[in-house]
């Protein structure tokens, strides 16, 4: 499957945190051609194993990208059939005003977010940010009918299909972190052409957006020798301070900081330079908001790397990524993995 098509299909599907099972089949069908084994664990993480050649020490690398997306959840059904809702993961309420949505009840229902006409607003009202609790979803049905299709706790997603922008860029919802999944897909394709010694566990993790939950349990399960998280980073736009952002189209950002193993990071930078793969740096003085955070402190500690794909307008339904960055992340990872042998491993991971 073409990676861009795979990514578009992933993003046009729904996988709100805790409800990722809907895209498992799509992921399995894409990866199965290149994998030795695919399994799904107790929390729903999809674990794709590609074995290495002559892996005499049974060493394991874990690569993680999260397959869940932020979304909304039905909080209550009002007397007139309107729905009040809450968020799953970090949703800025200001981004959902005037959106079209789907409420995933016992069938999928089309709805709109209700907004007050400007004519009826108080003078300074439109200066203030809208709060989640002030918003309603109109499904066009009365209370009885809504109750026959929808329950408290049903999830809601924004209707958005992937749009192709100029320059090989895509815009849509949940590119955070399906861009990472797409990168893993490109990576496993590359690795089917080059030899690698170590076993690789590609993990599509669940519930990252609500607390890195899938990474906690899947890392415990796999107990790799080291782990790499692929997530998205803040793509630069005019109003953001330069030091908080990375540039679109300039390759993956390699995170530097305490939560990252210094020698592993030096090695991946070496590989990037050796193969002329564009890359940038992302400085993290402390906590990193990705699966890497959970991986590092599992069991007795796991040396960890973090790669960020530049992405603009994070956590809106018009996130933008550059396919070049996805491909370069995959390439970098593939060459990096292929360069590591069992003999190198101890020296690479020691302090």
């Amino acid at each position: 499957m073409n990676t861009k098509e795979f990514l578009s299909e992933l993003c046009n599907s729904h996988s709100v945190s805790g409800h990722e099972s809907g895209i498992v089949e799509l992921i399995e069908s894409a990866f199965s051609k290149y994998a030795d084994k695919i399994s799904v664990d107790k929390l729903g993480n999809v674990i794709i194993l590609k074995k290495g050649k002559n892996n005499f020490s049974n060493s394991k690398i874990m690569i993680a990208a999260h397959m869940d997306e932020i979304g909304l959840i039905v909080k209550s059904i009002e007397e007139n059939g309107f729905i009040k809702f809450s968020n799953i993961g970090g949703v800025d309420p200001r981004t959902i005003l005037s959106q079209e949505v789907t409420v995933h009840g016992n069938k999928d229902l089309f709805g709109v977010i209700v907004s007050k006409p400007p004519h009826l607003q108080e003078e300074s009202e439109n200066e203030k940010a809208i709060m989640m609790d002030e918003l309603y979803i109109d499904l066009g049905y009365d209370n009885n009918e809504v109750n026959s299709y929808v329950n408290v706790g049903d999830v809601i997603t924004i209707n958005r299909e992937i749009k192709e922008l100029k320059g090989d860029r895509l815009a849509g919802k949940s590119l955070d972190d399906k861009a990472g999944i797409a990168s893993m897909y490109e990576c496993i394709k590359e690795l089917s052409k080059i030899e690698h010694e170590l076993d690789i566990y590609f993990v599509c993790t669940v519930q990252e957006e609500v607390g890195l939950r899938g990474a906690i349990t899947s890392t415990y399960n796999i107990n790799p020798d080291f782990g790499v998280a692929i997530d998205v980073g803040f793509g630069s736009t005019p109003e953001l301070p330069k030091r908080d952002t990375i540039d679109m189209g300039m390759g993956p950002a390699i995170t530097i900081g305490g939560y990252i193993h210094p020698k592993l990071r030096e090695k991946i930078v070496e590989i990037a330079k050796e193969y002329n793969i564009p890359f940038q740096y992302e400085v993290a003085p402390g906590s990193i908001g990705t699966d890497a955070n959970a991986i590092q402190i599992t069991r007795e500690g796991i040396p960890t790397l973090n790669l960020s794909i530049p992405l603009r307008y994070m956590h809106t339904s018009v996130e933008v990524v550059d396919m070049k960055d996805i491909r370069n992340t995959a390439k970098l990872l593939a060459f990096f993995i292929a360069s590591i042998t069992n003999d190198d491993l101890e020296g690479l991971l020691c302090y």
Partner: protein
Amino acid sequence: MLLKKLTEASGVSGNEKEVRDIIIAEIKDHVDDLKIDKLGNIIAYKNGKPSSKKLMITAHMDEVGLMVTDIDDKGFIKFTTVGGIDKRVLVSKTVHIGDNKIPGVIGSKPIHLQKKNERNKAIDIDNLYIDIGTDTKEETSKFVKIGDYVTFDSKYIEFGDDLIKAKALDNRVGCSLLIELIKEVKDVSFYGVFTVMEEIGLRGAGPAAYYVNPDISIILEGTLCYDVPKIDSHLIPTYINKGPAISLMDRTTIFNRSLREKIVGIAIKNNIPYQYRKSSMGGNDSGNIHTKKEGSITATISVPCRNIHSPTSVMSKKDYDNTYRLLRAIIKDFEKGELVNGF
């Protein structure tokens, strides 16, 4: 002098190498097993009389500091904080950057050029930068790179009535105490663990405890002290010169009461002054140790440090000595099997 060597070394959270190497050199001939784990924690074991309970004593090696995030076109260095630092202590200070300890200064707009309302506000980190004396990005980049760690430039100085000023007393004081215990204690089995990245999320402690799986842990710290005049006594977390501070509770642990009471009993029996750490703010490695695996009991014992997380922390030698005496007495009780009675 051990504490001087330790405090003047650079070991910002995530980059503890220089401190780790000093500690290893000090303890390697006094331990039966020594390993560096996958996050950089030092896990040392002293083999002595067999005991029914596993004892672990820990101290974190890292200090708060800064990290280079960018070099601008004129060669000025932008940075961010690592760990909890009040940004107001950064202005008008000297620093060292990177492994080569390049000297730099954090200046600020002269008061002459500031508007009246500007003077009432704290200077934002975005408006601060380090100057190493170069004028272009290219020149600066010869000496400094993005991701370099920065420490305060602060010498170890003894002053006043047996007081010490240094940077990083939190937690080189704990490291120093633990090193001395490792060297001097004979014939008692225990793990001495020097952890990484406590200041950025108690990171090293969890995996270290997972490996060691202790029954009892004693965590050594340098802790908050703000004993200035005219403050209500209940708002003073600890005092200088009133002895080691024993923790009651903080954001990450409710300290096991029986163990805490036993420690107080030991202090009283041996005529060692002690105090309680009255604040429940803050946290330390105990948080991630006591809830690991099937759980364990912990106690945190701290040396009070004024001006914590700044270049000019101050502690009292008397408090250090009394803390050491208390630790020796606790270990003696442990050796006799008395510490663990009832657990």
